[in-house]
C-alpha cells in the first residue's frame, strides 16, 4: 500500500490526483520545479499565472500527455505510467486549449466520441442519457446536426467541453474552458463545473479571469518564478500576496468581489512600473 492508497481515493475529500516532487518542462528547460500538489474530490481549483508560467505544461503533465522531468503524478493512488490508457480515459478528462477540427463531424458525432472509453461497459441507454444531459447543459441540443466546421468559436468551445463532460470522468483538467464564451455561457459553464465538483469530482481549471476564478473555485494554484503557491480562495491576505508575487502587480481584495487589480482603482501616472517579461529559454 502506498501512502496515496491509504488516503483513500474513493472517500469524499480524498485526493483523486496528486503529485510529489514534480518538475516539469521541455528537455533541459525546467518550467516548474519540485511541486507537491494534491487535488481532492469535491474541490474546484484554479490554476493562474502569467503567460509561459507553465499552466498548460502542468495540465499536460497531470493528464499524462507529457512525462514529468522528475517526480511522480498519481491518479487514485496509482502512478500515471501504470494506468492503461483506456482505463485512465474513464477517470480523467482533459480539455486542450486548442482543437482544430477540419472534418465535417456533426456536433452530436463529435460529442459522442466522449463516450468511447465506456463502450461495451455501459448500456446504450446510459450513453444516450449522458449525451442528452451534456448537450442540454451546454446549450447544444439545437446544434446537434450542425457540422463542426460551421460552428462559431464559442459554439466549438462548448462542443469540446461537452465531449469531455460526456466522458463523465472523476477528474476534470480543463485548459481555459471559458475561452471564446459569451458572458451567459461563461456563467453557465462555471455553474455546471461547480455542480460537478459538489458531486465529488476534482475540477482543475486554467483561467485568466481572476474574478471568475475566484467565484468558481475553492482554491488557487498560483504559478510564478518556477514554483507554485496554493491558497484558499477566501483567504484574502494570502491570495493577494500570491497574486502580487506571480503578476508583479499590486492587488487589493474584497470579500464580495475577490481579488481586485490595483485595489480596484487604476494607478496614477508614474505610480507603477511595468515588470520585466519572464525569462524565456
Amino acid at each position: 500500500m502506498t501512502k496515496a492508497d491509504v488516503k483513500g481515493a474513493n472517500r469524499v475529500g480524498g485526493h483523486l490526483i496528486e503529485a510529489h516532487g514534480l518538475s516539469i518542462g521541455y528537455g533541459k528547460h525546467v518550467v516548474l520545479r519540485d511541486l507537491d500538489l494534491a487535488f481532492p474530490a469535491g474541490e474546484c481549483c484554479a490554476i493562474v499565472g502569467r503567460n509561459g508560467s507553465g499552466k498548460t505544461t502542468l495540465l499536460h503533465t497531470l493528464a499524462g500527455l507529457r512525462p514529468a522531468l522528475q517526480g511522480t503524478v498519481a491518479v487514485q493512488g496509482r502512478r500515471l505510467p501504470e494506468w492503461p490508457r483506456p482505463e485512465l480515459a474513464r477517470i480523467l478528462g482533459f480539455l486542450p486549449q486548442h482543437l482544430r477540427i477540419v472534418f465535417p463531424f456533426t456536433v452530436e458525432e463529435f460529442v459522442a466520441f466522449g463516450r468511447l472509453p465506456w463502450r461495451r461497459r455501459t448500456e446504450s441507454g446510459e450513453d444516450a442519457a449522458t449525451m442528452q444531459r451534456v448537450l442540454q447543459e451546454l446549450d447544444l441540443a439545437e446544434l446537434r446536426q450542425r457540422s463542426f466546421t460551421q460552428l462559431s468559436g464559442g459554439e466549438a468551445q462548448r462542443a469540446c467541453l461537452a465531449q469531455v463532460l460526456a466522458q463523465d470522468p472523476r477528474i476534470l483538467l480543463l485548459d481555459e474552458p471559458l475561452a471564446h464564451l459569451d458572458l451567459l455561457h461563461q456563467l453557465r459553464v462555471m455553474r455546471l463545473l461547480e455542480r460537478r465538483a459538489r458531486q465529488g469530482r476534482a475540477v482543475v481549471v486554467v483561467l485568466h479571469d481572476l474574478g471568475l476564478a475566484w467565484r468558481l473555485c475553492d482554491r488557487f494554484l498560483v504559478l510564478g518564478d518556477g514554483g507554485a503557491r496554493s491558497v484558499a480562495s477566501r483567504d484574502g491576505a494570502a491570495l493577494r500576496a500570491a497574486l502580487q508575487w506571480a503578476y508583479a502587480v499590486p492587488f487589493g481584495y474584497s470579500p464580495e468581489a475577490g481579488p481586485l487589480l490595483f485595489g480596484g482603482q487604476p494607478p496614477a501616472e508614474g505610480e507603477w512600473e511595468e515588470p520585466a517579461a519572464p525569462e524565456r529559454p
Partner: protein
Amino acid sequence: MNRRRPRVAVVYIASVALLLLACLAGLGSGAVAVSWRDIARVLAGLEHGTTVRLIVLQLRLPRVCSAALVGAGLALSGAVLQTLLRNPLAEPFTLGVSGGAGFLVTALAAFAPALYALPYSAPLAGFLGAALAGGLVFALAHRQHFSNTALILCGVILSFFFGSLIMLNFAFGRPAALQSVMVWLMGDFSVVTPTTVLVTGLGLIAPLVLVLASAQTLDVLAIGDERALGLGVPVRAARRRLFAAAALMTGLCVANAGVIGFVGFLVPHLVRFLVGARHRHVLPIAALLGAAFLVIADTLARVLFSPLELPVGAFTGITGAAFFLAYYLRRPRGEWDTEAL
C-alpha cells in the same frame, strides 16, 4: 445552415451501381465495341475461342480490374493520410512516395536497360522505390512523433528531392528507353497483365482490412492527438500502423500503374461531402467511388482520342486540378491567412 445529407444507404447503393456500370463500360468500349449481352455471355463462360472472349478476358478485364484496385487503394490511402495529417489537402503523393517509385524505375531504365527489359522489373522497382520513400518519410517524421507539420514537411522535401533525381536520370540516361518510362510516370494501365492484377489485389488485402477495422480509431485521431490520447487511444502505435498501411497501398498502386495523382484527394473529399466525416462510412464508400472513378477515367482515356491512348495520370491530373482550383476559389477570401500549417 444545415445542409441535408443524402441517406447513407442511398450513397452505398449508388456507389456500387456506379462501379458496376463503369466496369461494364470499360469492358464494352474500345477499338472494338462489345455489347453488354456479349460481355455477360463471356463472363458466364458461354463464349469459347472467339475474338470477343479474347478481347474481354485477356485485354480489357485485367485493365478494368487493375484500374478498380488502384482507384480503391489510392482513394483509401488518401482518406487515411488526410486524417493522419489532419489536412484535407493531403494525398498519397504529398508524401513523396510516388517520387521514390518514379526515381527507381527511371534509374533502372537509364542505367540498366537490360534489367529494365525483364518482365516485372519495372513494377518491382516501383514498389521498392515507394517503400524506400515511404520508409524515409516514416523515419524522418518519427523524430517528431509523426506530428502534422513534420509529415508534410518531410513529404515535400522528399518530393522535391526525388523529382530532381528523376530529372538527373533523364539528363544522364538513354532517351530511347526512357520514352516508355515517361508514359509509366504519367500513369498508365496499358501494360497490366493478369499477374500484376493478382499481385496488387493480394497485396492490398492486408492493409485494406487493417484500415477498415480502424474506422473508430481514425475518427478519434481526426480530432487531434491530445484528445485521442485522452480518450484512451494509443496514438503513436495507431498512427504508425495506419501510416504503414497507407504507404503500402500507395506503393502497390504506383508499382502497378505509375503515378496517378489526385484520386486520393478528390474522392475522399466527395465522400465526406456526401456522408460526413465518420470513417465507418467514409472508408468503404471512398474505396467504391475511387474504383469507379479510375475505371471511368481509364476508359475515357482509351476511347476519347482513339486510337491514341491518353495516359490516365494526365487525365486525372487535369480533372483533379480543376477540382482543386474550384475548391480553392470557393473558400472565402482570406480564410487561410491565419491558419497554421
